């Protein structure tokens, strides 16, 4: 294979895309295909792994290798794939149900193990594929088919969850901002280890515009902040609002007084602090890179031990395997 430059189109598979018209998934798919063309990815080196859900249909539409597995378990499959062939560029696509409901544990464990995969969680705060039950990210009081009087379960905050699992890279973006998605994909891609990206995604059928108060285009500039490592924490249409730390807390301030964002501190507390800003009326919803640290990568260590063992004991041969232990002869 020559490494001829591929275009966005080269990453489109021959499968008809079957999401609902208007679904946010289309924008994410387009952004991803574009990003893959731009980064000069090789389709044959790439594997998209997913669970079950509308979001998890994603791999069918990428002209790369793809594995549409079972509900919630994509991280486990991906771990097996990476431990077998670390050369593969593995991307997991999951939903708030797939990844945080049935699959929460596998997500937690891949995050702590720091397997070198990129995880995209499409968070639409709903179970789309099963036609609209509330999900573990739906706010309390969500009235849907299975919660006619409103849901009573406190939701997870996906990024806070990932931070609690000692995730090494945690970010958030939104389906209506192609540029921000591209930038976030690139940052995740550059990270060596598990990169977790929450993508706020509009399910036009069952949870239309759930994000209208925060990341919807008309309000986005004033209601969110894009956290960029090493840059000042400034936001607002006119870039006139700032954030700074005060003791245990984060607080609004003027743009001039704004602190500098560092997602790579020793402790993960700052990441959690900003990730929980949504809960707080006066503060913006955080987008961008919330956490980014370097830690040993799981499959690298796995293979290193094999190399070490081979170096020490020699490559094991079938004959040595059988002819081991204390033996005796019968003649």
């Amino acid at each position, binding site marked *: 294979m020559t490494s001829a430059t591929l275009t966005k189109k080269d990453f489109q598979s021959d499968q008809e895309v079957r999401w609902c018209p208007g679904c946010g998934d289309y924008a994410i798919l387009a952004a991803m295909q574009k990003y893959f063309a731009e980064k000069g990815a090789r389709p*044959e080196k790439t594997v998209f792994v997913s669970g079950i859900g509308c979001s998890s249909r994603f791999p*069918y539409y990428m002209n790369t290798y793809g594995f549409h597995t079972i509900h919630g378990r994509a991280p486990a499959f991906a771990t097996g794939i990476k431990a077998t062939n670390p050369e593969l560029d593995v991307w997991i696509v999951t939903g708030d149900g797939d990844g945080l409901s049935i699959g929460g544990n596998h997500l937690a464990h891949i995050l702590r193990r720091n397997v070198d995969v990129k995880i995209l969680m499409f968070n639409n705060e709903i179970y789309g594929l099963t036609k609209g039950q509330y999900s573990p990210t739906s706010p309390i009081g969500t009235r849907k088919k299975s919660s006619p009087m409103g849901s009573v379960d406190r939701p997870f905050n996906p990024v806070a969850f990932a931070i609690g699992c000692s995730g090494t890279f945690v970010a958030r973006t939104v389906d209506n901002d192609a540029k921000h998605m591209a930038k976030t994909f690139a940052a995740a891609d550059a990270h060596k280890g598990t990169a977790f990206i929450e993508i706020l995604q509009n399910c036009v059928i069952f949870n239309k515009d759930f994000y209208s108060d925060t990341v919807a285009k008309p309000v986005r500039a004033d209601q969110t902040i894009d956290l960029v490592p090493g840059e000042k924490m400034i936001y607002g249409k006119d870039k006139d609002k700032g954030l700074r730390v005060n003791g245990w807390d984060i607080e609004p301030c003027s743009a001039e007084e704004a602190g500098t964002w560092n997602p790579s501190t020793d402790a993960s507390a700052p990441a959690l602090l900003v990730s929980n800003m949504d809960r707080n009326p006066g503060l913006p919803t955080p987008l961008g890179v919330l956490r980014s640290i370097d830690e040993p990568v799981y499959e690298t260590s796995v293979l290193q031990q094999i190399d070490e063992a081979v170096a020490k004991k020699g490559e094991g041969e079938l004959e040595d395997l059988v002819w081991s232990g204390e033996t*005796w002869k019968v003649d």
Partner: protein
Amino acid sequence: MTTTEKPGAELPLQQLDHVVIRFAGDSGDGMQITGNQFTHTSALVGNDLATLPDFPAEIRAPAGTRPGVSGFQLQFSSRDVHTPGDAPDVLVAMNPAALAVNIKDLKKGGIVVANTGNFKDSDLRKAQLEKNPLTDGSLEGFRVIEVDINSRVAEALSESPLSTKDKQRCKNFYTLGLMYWVYSRPLEPTMEWLATKFKNKPELVDANQKALQAGFNAGDIHELFQGHYEVPKATDLPTGTYRNIMGNQALAMGLVAGAKLANLQPVLGSYPITPASTILESLAAYKHYGVVTIQAEDEIAAICAAIGASYAGALGMTSTSGPGMALKGEAMGLAVSTELPLVIVDIQRAGPSTGMPTKVEQSDLLQSIFGRNGDTPMPVIAVSSPTDAFALAIEACRIAVQYMTPVILLSDNFVANGAEPWRLPSMDDLKPFPASFVSKPEGHQTYKRDARGSRPWVKPGTAGMEFRIGGLEKDTDGNISIDPDNHRSMTDQRHQKVQNVADSIPTPEVFGPQEGDLLILGWGSTGGIITQGVQTAQAQGHNVSRIHLTHVWPLPNGLDEIFGRFKAILIPEMNMGQMTRVMRSEMPHHNFISYPKVTGQPFLTTEIVDKIESLLSK
């Protein structure tokens, strides 16, 4: 140093065909080491043998209590041996708890060797005994040999620099020496083993060797026994080089060998569970063979990681026991649907639910064949003995790779922890079955089938072959399809592919008369006991035959014809009759008789013999 030349020359020496001996003591008494040394030495003198350790369910129950008793039984013989033996001829009991727990199994007239040093009132209390069994008459009918091993060891080691406590830890070697004398074994192998084992602690080598020698000498000197015995070397053993091996150890080696023969990297995803954990542990030590072990967060992640590995071009494997199997069903379905090779090892234990984790049962058979949603067929094969585990692990790999299918390899607690001498295969015995990967797009279809009904395997990373698979129904091209005819056809193809495996396996042999009134059918670990039972019954003049099933799904070809030659087929199994059910559903026109045993313990040879007698006398 050695005095083993003419062991106990003064006392009568009697020849025996075989002996079953059980060592029993507190968890801390070193009974497993004692048993293993006896085994090793017996193997070296040329006996055939089989062993079974019996660990307590607790990690460390309080010393001296019944739950804390640890045991090790072995049968050694001058002939081919198939089981660790029914009732022991000799019971070595290091304390009252060990005696109380084990005495019910001892053969009538059998020998009890009791360490009286541990039969103080406090010891009796710990064992929840109101009276001393050595004096209350309850041991009538047995030959009781009382030895105060504690004192004898203390005497023998009076010069040793060790602490009193450490000296007492040599008790097991004193006991071993004593039994070596009784059964005319050489001391050298154990002497050497001690020298290597404690090479950095010469005082331990010395003390244990002294204790061993003292025990040996005691047999003679103290005239504890009226005589001693010899079990001549087995002459019917095939020539070759042997080693002693435990079931799970052999199984793990077989998995590595199977992957090598398939020219694939073995990747195990596993989550610890009794009695399967030692497979994970064994494989983790084979890193220089390229083995990757992923200790997953649970059994579901374990099998999914293994499937992921197979997807990426390795040979994925997963090992567990019953409760873990129950969790893997959904993922097995995905492996069936995507048609990826996978080996699933189930070391069965007694259920239902958590059940009795350290006890044996064969009750996962129906779960293995049928325990998944949908019509989801999968080959199942079952291990009969520790050494068989090696061969069948390879066989599981072969089927998985040649038929692009998950395969279940069943074993159980009895095989997993049992041991027997293994005649090492030569490299020529191990036939390779290299996997092949497709890399040319011409004419390729994801689910296009070969003569076996198997589909092509593409390794991600191969340019121009990018494809998507998943658990939704798909057509031959691999595209999602809900077409009714396609679903029927794919369901048939999946079914047929698994049935095709039967064409790659031999029809099992009938041992004994080729037709008659009664055929005993064994599968899994009942194999050895049935062999022993049928041989015994045949020797007693009964017209009975036996057959053993290695492949339990699909059934091998030719069974129908074989069964047709017998009036009845008896199926002894350690469950409520699961194989009988399978047989009846496959071949309803034969007369299958179920013989279930669900006590958490293996069949006894006598139970097989008695059953044969009662059926044939009807």
